[in-house]
């Protein structure tokens, strides 16, 4: 007995009547059970209705795979109703991943060759929607036959089906190329449209097809024809200009045509005048109240900005206006376009706009905007001070979004602009005092304050309002950075080193700094701890070297290796002297033989501090600074040795904290062109009177050199 099944509309009503998701599910599962049973029973009369219901629930997201075979049965039926639903089902439920899909090939073949147009239409539609490559190969001959049939209804569908087939199986181009010429002469709009699409597709895939279609003057096709072909492009110029000027743009359809014209002009080798026309059309689009039009204009202008730069420049003010768009996809495009339009003559004005944009732009555009501004500034900065100001502004506004190398770039920039040191350090100090949360800014500021703290305290800088800053304030600020939970470990490193540097820049006593340094000696962060311990040791044991070690950084070549703001870690590129560095020997081996110099006197000789003969003194392992002689001591230097360009100098310091101590530094310099190797310098100092006995051995100009000599003429001031 046949149970009357629900009509489609009744099922839909029932589903929509369900109050909850669970209820809906129940209704649907119940109905699906009925449908399954009905399929099993093989009821032909209501099959189409059952499938239709299944397709409805499928759209709601429920499984419908058990309907696939029913689609095949319905398609094979002779009733039109069945075929209609069956083919619809095939398009929705079958796809080329299922082997089942091949089973409809036969039905489609039959339907294509029988004469009822709506049926042929259904078959062609299905083929062009879900036809796999195999199906296309199998059915190409049938479709080809239909191309030249009398009925325009069928032909236009066959043409577009051919388009699909070529996309799936490019080799079929050869099948569908020949009929095209004739099809072009058809009057029927639908056929022409389809034919153009077909020709477009053919030409895109094979340049050989182009030969046939030079004379056709229709927009989309023109784009392809004109590409890389002078002659066609020329013929098109006038046509395109005409279309562009005569199109009525009061409706979107008109704008669509105009836009297509622009796209065509952009793609073919058009005359310069035509390209300017295209740019101007886009410029007008930018002023259109419809934001869709503005969107396509911005996108297209972006494509043209490199090739037709000056033409696009003329629309710069309008582009900049678009930065204020509320729609993020428009403002993003406006940003990209604006950045592309920056050049040396408009950089100041543009940067102003872009910086204003940076302050208010949506967060996901911040990073791109910041990078863009920084890059443009680097390329087009009119003055160094402007450049520094710009970077500073970006760091304060969008500090967290800048790329990692921004810090390095800025410090390098500042370091290289000696005349702006005072200005920079003041501005950075002010910025830091206001906000210590933006890490890149804090890092640069800390570095600057460390380096140029003396300039900061000096008071006057003509470019900024005078600001009295006292030492305690500066130290307090750096300590605040050091202690803040917002500071990254790297930032705290900067701050600590800056404090340390200030110990030589400031005039007051260094107790406060020493305290901080010693506290951080037990910091949990290993990096900070190490620095602090080293700095502390510097205070306690190597105080005489502190000034030299913490000297101001020399100016670095812009293109040289990145100068690390941390003097401690930098390997400097700039060398102040012409000296070729002399490789050092480990110090330990030098101690023992000294006894020989002292006329064989034995006993331990402790040398505080060890005299390191390498140029630059004991500094090589800590700093790798170039040969910078220690600040001139009141005691004059003494040259004690010279031979073939190798020179030895002595310099003397009495550290202020310990005047009983005399520190003698031996500096060996090689002025010659030959390398000095295996250099060993040994010194002995008898107790009284003050004199030095020195022994040198080294290789120079392929010779072994050994020299022993005494230095008696130590300056008077060095005597106790």
């Amino acid at each position, binding site marked *: 007995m*046949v149970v009357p099944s629900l009509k489609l509309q009744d099922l839909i009503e029932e589903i929509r009547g369900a109050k909850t998701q669970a209820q809906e599910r129940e209704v649907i599962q119940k109905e699906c059970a009925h449908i399954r049973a009905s399929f099993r029973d093989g009821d032909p009369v209501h099959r189409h209705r059952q499938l239709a219901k299944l397709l409805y629930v499928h759209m709601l997201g429920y499984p419908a795979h058990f309907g696939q075979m029913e689609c095949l049965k319905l398609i094979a039926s002779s009733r039109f*109703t069945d075929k209609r639903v069956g083919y619809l089902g095939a398009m929705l439920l079958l796809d080329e991943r299922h082997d089942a899909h091949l089973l409809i090939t036969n039905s489609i073949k039959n339907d294509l060759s029988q004469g009822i147009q709506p049926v042929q239409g259904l078959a062609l*539609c299905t083929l062009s929607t879900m036809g796999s490559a195999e199906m296309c190969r199998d059915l190409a001959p049938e479709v080809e036959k239909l191309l030249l049939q009398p009925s325009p209804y069928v032909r236009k569908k066959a043409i577009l089906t051919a388009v699909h087939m070529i996309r799936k199986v490019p080799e079929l181009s050869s099948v569908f190329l020949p009929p095209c010429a004739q099809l072009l002469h058809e009057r029927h709009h639908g056929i022409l*449209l389809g034919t153009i699409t077909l020709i477009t597709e053919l030409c895109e895939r094979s340049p050989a097809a182009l030969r046939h279609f030079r004379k056709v003057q229709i927009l989309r096709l023109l784009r392809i024809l004109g*590409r890389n072909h002078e002659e066609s492009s020329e013929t098109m110029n006038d046509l395109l200009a005409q279309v562009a000027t005569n199109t009525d743009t009061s409706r979107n359809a008109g704008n669509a045509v105009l836009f297509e014209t622009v796209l065509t002009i952009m793609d073919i080798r058009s005359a310069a005048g035509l390209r300017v026309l295209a740019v101007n059309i886009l410029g007008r689009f930018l002023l259109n109240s419809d934001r869709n039009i503005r969107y396509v204009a911005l996108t297209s202008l972006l494509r043209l900005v490199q090739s037709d730069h000056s033409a696009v420049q003329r629309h710069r003010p309008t582009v900049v206006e678009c930065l204020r768009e509320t729609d993020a996809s428009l403002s993003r495009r406006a940003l990209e376009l604006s950045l592309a339009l920056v050049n040396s003559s408009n950089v100041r004005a543009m940067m102003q706009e872009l910086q204003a944009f940076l302050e208010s732009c949506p967060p996901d555009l911040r990073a791109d905007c910041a990078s863009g501004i920084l890059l443009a500034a680097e390329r087009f900065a009119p003055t160094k001070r402007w450049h520094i100001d710009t970077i500073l502004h970006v760091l304060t506004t969008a500090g967290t979004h800048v790329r990692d190398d921004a810090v390095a770039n800025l410090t390098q920039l500042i370091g290289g602009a000696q005349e702006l040191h005072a200005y920079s350090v003041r501005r950075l100090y002010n910025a830091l005092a206001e906000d210590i949360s933006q890490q890149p800014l804090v890092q640069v500021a800390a570095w600057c304050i460390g380096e140029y703290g003396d300039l900061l305290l000096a008071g006057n800088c003509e470019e900024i309002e005078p600001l009295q800053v006292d030492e305690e304030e500066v130290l307090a600020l750096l300590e605040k950075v050091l202690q803040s939970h917002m500071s990254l470990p790297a930032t705290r490193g900067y701050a600590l080193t800056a404090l340390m540097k200030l110990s030589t820049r400031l005039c007051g006593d260094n107790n406060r700094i020493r305290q901080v340094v010693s506290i951080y000696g037990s910091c949990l962060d290993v990096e900070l701890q190490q620095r602090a311990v080293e700095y502390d040791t510097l205070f306690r044991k190597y105080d005489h070297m502190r000034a030299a070690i913490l000297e101001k950084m020399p100016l670095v070549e812009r293109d040289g290796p990145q100068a690390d703001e941390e003097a401690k870690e930098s390997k400097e590129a700039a060398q102040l002297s012409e000296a070729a560095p002399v490789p050092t020997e480990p110090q330990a081996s030098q101690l023992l033989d000294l006894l020989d110099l002292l006329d064989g006197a034995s006993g331990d000789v402790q040398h505080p501090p060890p005299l390191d003969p390498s140029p630059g003194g004991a500094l090589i392992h800590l700093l790798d600074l170039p040969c910078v002689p220690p600040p001139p001591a009141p005691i004059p230097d003494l040259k004690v040795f010279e031979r073939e360009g190798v020179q030895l100098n002595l310099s003397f310091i009495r550290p202020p904290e310990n005047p009983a101590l005399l520190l003698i530094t031996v500096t060996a310099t090689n002025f010659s062109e030959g390398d000095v190797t295996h250099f060993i310098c040994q010194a002995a100092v008898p107790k009284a009177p003050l004199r030095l006995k020195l022994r040198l051995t080294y290789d120079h100009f392929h010779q072994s050199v050994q020299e022993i000599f005494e230095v008696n003429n130590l300056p008077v001031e060095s005597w106790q």
Partner: protein
Amino acid sequence: MPAGFPPHSTTASLPQHSDRGFPFAAAAAAAAGQAPPRPRPAAAMQFMLLFSRQGKLRLQKWYVPLSDKEKKKITRELVQTVLARKPKMCSFLEWRDLKIVYKRYASLYFCCAIEDQDNELITLEIIHRYVELLDKYFGSVCELDIIFNFEKAYFILDEFLLGGEVQETSKKNVLKAIEQADLLQEEAETPRSVLEEIGLT
């Protein structure tokens, strides 16, 4: 080789310009007077979705082969993205590697995915034309018409677009074709012999 979907990332928001690096690079890469080499297009239109403001799907036409799972995923994500758009925003957005053109008519969103080189403004026209056709057929169409007669909505679409391309620009012709098919269907459903009815022939 089956034309397939380009590989997509998982973010469903603004254009992936970050993939092409920095804006300068993106602009330079976009064109230099010559069109860049174009990949073989899968279809002009990749798919069309109709859905309500609550995100319920009312029609789905796919012109590219995808598994059911992929279709569901795309639908879910795209519906979310479009529904999140504010009313004043433009009708175009970039999503994964596709351009999406959408427009809201009363309680229904019409959403199309097109290829990179396609003209967005024309697609808007296509959507509008489809709505006009539905309107003419149903007489002042509303969402309920499409819900209760979803197969008809598909049939009408299939007379307007084929394989993702426009097949007929004349409204009249499209509607005439539907009329004819409807007639054929009616004839097919006229009372048959009793024997047929009970499945004996």
